[in-house]
């Protein structure tokens, strides 16, 4: 399975959040962005690594559409963004970086998504439109109080 991934990451295992599993970017998807000169998409692979490998704020199951209930969304809050491979900018305010993963661990998309104020306050910083089952989320200080 992993041989078709051109880059592999270690992420929280949805089946056992105390453990990790391997996820990866398929070569065909990387080549699409590469051949068409989409530097922003490639530069943001740094953010994919950040969110999956230590920067996960929450992990949800389901892409909120029929047939994709067994897929996953990881999101986090990197402090920066990439306009290209070399131009780093501050992260957009009020947004989470989402990594969309298929049920076999294949990464299918990565993108910034707004987090509305009400969700920031009440729903664990859930990005807009990400409504799947919460599997894991980073503990907040308020969780312990």
């Amino acid at each position, binding site marked *: 399975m992993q041989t078709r991934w051109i880059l592999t990451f270690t992420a929280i295992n949805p089946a056992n959040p105390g453990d990790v599993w391997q996820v990866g970017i398929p070569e065909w998807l990387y080549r699409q962005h590469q051949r068409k000169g*989409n530097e922003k998409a490639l530069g943001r692979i740094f953010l994919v690594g950040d969110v999956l490998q230590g920067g996960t704020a929450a992990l949800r199951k389901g892409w909120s559409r029929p047939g994709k209930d067994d897929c996953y969304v990881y999101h986090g809050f990197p402090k920066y963004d990439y306009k290209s491979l070399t131009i780093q900018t501050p992260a957009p305010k009020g947004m989470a970086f989402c990594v969309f993963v298929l049920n076999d661990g294949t990464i299918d998309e990565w993108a910034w998504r707004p987090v509305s104020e009400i969700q920031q306050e009440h729903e664990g910083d859930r990005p807009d439109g990400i409504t799947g089952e919460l599997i894991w989320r980073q503990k907040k200080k308020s969780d312990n109080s």
Partner: protein
Amino acid sequence: MATEEEIRQFLSDNPPATEFAPYCYVSEAADALTVHFKQDADYSEKLNDHITVYRSLETNEIVGCRVKGISGILQDLHNYIMVRDKKGNIELALIFLAFRGGAEENVARTMNDLAREAAERNISLEMSA
């Protein structure tokens, strides 16, 4: 596990083409069509269950989109329209028509914007992909 340094090295060894060109592709596993008109730094906005648009962080204009549940549309499309060329490619603008009818006003407006962007850039979906 890819470290930041490994990612940096990988990107250096596999650099992007020097000029950006608009493009689209279908992910069969995700059953989704993704379109990039421009390469502005962007964010995604879920419009409805089928359409997510990518908007420029700077100007908020549409710079791409993701159409979900695309396989059924592609299967049925030839019943309604002519394909574009001998290769069987489909003009991307036509795909948005499938979501135009009966849509709420803001969705219909966005579909028009997406179709216009696709037509202006003459983007086709390669059916052999």
